[in-house]
């Protein structure tokens, strides 16, 4: 055992301690980096060499590799949890917007206006010979029709807003897919030399976590460590060197037809043209759900309500006699189709121009005849909706309650999902998170090791000096 060897051993200790201190400082400086996993230098004792027969004397320390402390299983769970969390958060937001449109709890809303509409007909029944009451029947009808319009256009506004968000999310997802693809390549190149691309892997995990917040994906790792991503139900998003794209097709709304016609999603990774209904989960899935289920159903039901009121009031009103003694006309403008009835609901031209065209009675020359007014006001209590199962009031109240149920359920799930995500984050932090206190302690530990190794060299140097001095 030569003294220079001892120096060498000391040097290896210093190198190792320096590497550890560098890694520790890397950890500390990344304490707040999203998705960072703390790293640790794996070191091992260098092979001992035989010395003077049987004695094996160690050669110091060698650096094996730098590991990141990370559990892929938890990462995957976090990915799923954050997908569900983003899904619920996005849904909650969209439903809150929808719910706000039905400002019924404040007291002013369609519910009240519909009651007012029917009550105006009750007033007309009290005074069928009065023109002023007819004016106020007309005003209350306008107020009701306007509120139908307001609801309709507010819901369309929400839907447009959601469309814009979906478009934004799709392009974000596209750019993340490209980044993951690039990271795949970089990791492969870096790891060809045998090292561990820890930080790149952390980055890729973070990107994957982000990517899975947009929709449901499945992943598998290929033999080179690259991650391939499939969008569930659609097809590949990232495979090897290729990243597919999600394309949003928006044709300007033509004022007619269903929203699906003016908005659709395509993927370059899927032969079929329209993947709008194939995307599930995540933010995009949430927005599509709200848009195509909640909003569409709300609009349909509003349309049904508007068209039922229009048609049933018309069919009674036509049988009546105007204040001029002529045959009754339509009260509302006739609607050809149920579609968009809530938007097009309006007074007929006759009634809009002249309140005396409103019919209260069924026979001519009988100004006290109030039977038509009574019959119309009775529609409020009749089961005219839902194939004769529900009254107009109950139908609308059910609609409001349904929106509330969906929003309430989402909010509850959101709270639960937050807890789950927090729990998982805690577990991940437990493994991968940086504790400054711990790193500080480590730093001191490595500093001591460094000091001691330096001391070894100094001692070896002194020894060597002593040996050299022997000759004098």
């Amino acid at each position, binding site marked *: 055992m030569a003294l220079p060897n001892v120096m060498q051993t000391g040097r290896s200790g210093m190198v190792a301690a320096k590497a550890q201190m560098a890694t520790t400082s890397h950890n500390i400086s990344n304490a707040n980096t999203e998705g960072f996993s703390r790293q640790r230098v794996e070191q091992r004792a260098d092979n001992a060499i035989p010395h003077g027969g049987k004695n094996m004397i160690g050669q110091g320390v060698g650096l094996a590799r730098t590991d990141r402390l990370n559990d892929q299983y938890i990462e995957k769970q976090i990915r799923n949890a954050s997908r569900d969390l983003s899904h619920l958060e996005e849904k909650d937001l969209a439903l809150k917007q929808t*719910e706000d449109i039905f400002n019924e709890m404040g007291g002013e809303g369609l519910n009240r206006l519909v009651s007012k509409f029917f009550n105006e007909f009750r007033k007309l029944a009290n005074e069928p010979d009065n023109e002023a009451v007819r004016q106020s029947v007309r005003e209350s009808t306008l107020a009701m029709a306007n509120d139908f319009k307001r609801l309709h256009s507010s819901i369309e506004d929400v839907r447009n807003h959601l469309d814009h968000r979906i478009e934004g999310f799709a392009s974000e997802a596209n750019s993340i897919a490209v980044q993951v693809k690039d990271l795949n390549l970089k990791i492969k190149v870096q790891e060809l030399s045998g090292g561990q691309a820890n930080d790149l892997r952390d980055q890729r995990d973070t990107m994957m976590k982000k990517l899975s917040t947009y929709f449901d994906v499945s992943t598998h790792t290929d033999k080179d460590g690259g991650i391939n991503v499939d969008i569930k139900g659609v097809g590949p998003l990232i495979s090897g060197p290729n990243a597919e794209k999600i394309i949003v097709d928006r044709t300007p709304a033509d004022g007619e037809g269903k929203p699906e016609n003016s908005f659709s999603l395509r993927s370059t990774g899927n032969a079929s043209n329209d993947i709008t209904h194939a995307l599930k989960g995540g933010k995009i899935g949430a927005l599509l759900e709200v848009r195509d289920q909640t909003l569409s159903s709300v609009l349909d039901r509003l349309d049904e309500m508007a068209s039922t009121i229009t048609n049933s009031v018309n069919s009674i009103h036509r049988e009546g006699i105007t204040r001029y003694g002529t045959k009754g006309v339509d009260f509302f403008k006739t609607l050809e189709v149920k579609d968009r009835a809530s938007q097009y609901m309006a007074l007929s031209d006759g009634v809009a121009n002249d309140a005396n065209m409103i019919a209260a009675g069924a026979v001519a020359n009988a100004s006290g005849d109030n039977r038509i007014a009574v019959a119309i006001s009775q529609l409020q209590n009749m089961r005219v909706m839902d194939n004769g199962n529900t009254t107009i009031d109950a139908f609308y109240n059910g609609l409001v309650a349904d929106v509330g149920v969906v929003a309430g359920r989402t909010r509850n799930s959101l709270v639960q999902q937050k807890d789950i995500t927090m729990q998982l984050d805690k577990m991940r*932090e437990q493994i991968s998170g940086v504790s400054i206190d711990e790193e500080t302690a480590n730093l001191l530990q490595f500093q001591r090791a460094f000091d001691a190794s330096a001391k070894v060299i100094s001692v070896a140097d002194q020894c060597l000096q002593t040996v050299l001095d022997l000759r004098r």
Partner: protein
Amino acid sequence: MRVSDNTNFGLVRETINRTKGRMEKLQTQSATLKKVNTPSDDPVGSSKILEIRTDKVNNEQFLMNSKLAEAQLNNSESALSELGDIVIRAKEIAIQQASGASANDDTRLAVAEEITQMYQSAIGTANRRIGDRYVFGGFKTDQPPVTVDGKYVGDDGQMMVEVGRDVFIAMNIPGHEVFNTNPGVEDRPADMGSSPELQMRAGTRTPASYSATGQPGKEAGKAGPQAENVNVFEELQNLRIGLLTSDTETIRNTLDRFDQIHSRINSMRAKIGSRINGLQTMSQSLERQNITNAQLGSHLEDADMAQVVSDLAKEETVFRSALQSSGKLLQPTLMEFLK
């Protein structure tokens, strides 16, 4: 267990957010005094709240309808009572003038003039108006229902008003039912058919199939027993002619008929009275229902202020202690002890 700094800070953030979220909700409740501020706060309850509100608005209308109907019925009743007085007075005159003992041609001639006056005021009473509306004209409320020669030109329309959900009461008495003792026999005025709301309640029609021109009931009226009809205006005329011509036979004949008319008028007054009773009962029950609804609505919708305020105070304490413990948790690091 390892506790990273992120866990610490995350915990602090989460605690503060949650407490603040709960405080915000309580603050909304205390600002609006309502615990249901959006449908999702209580979907089933909110649907019920809307139902109650509709009931409330409708009940107010029903109460208003009741008041109007009551006013018109009261007016009709006082008109009928006046008409009844006229009939009694006419009968008294007829009794006096029917016998030769207390009357002669001269007295008859003298009271004939009084009967003419009574005839005029009977027509006037029959054409009683409230505002612009003739109350005894059936649906024909815009013209006098009885002409100067005592002919009824109204119809038999019954103006139904809704005084409670699906409860209808006619607020008028068509004149021909009052002026005739047996209106089915005389040539009836235009038949208005049974009112649409009655058909509707019977479930025999949907609005789409509604027809206002159907005239059920006419056949039934004709098929009834053929009793003699007496008309109040005709009878007054008969009495006047009897007096003018000093025809004691004719005068005597009117006696029984005036009785019939008087009992007819009385039965109509009783009918009106029972309608008014019905209205009052209905109004009372609506008012009771309003109170019950208000209680239920308040229970569903209104925040319990004592609860909200005490919860708010509690949350504030929680919030303060969270902040305090956070301060303690985040302050020290190992660094500070290594100097």
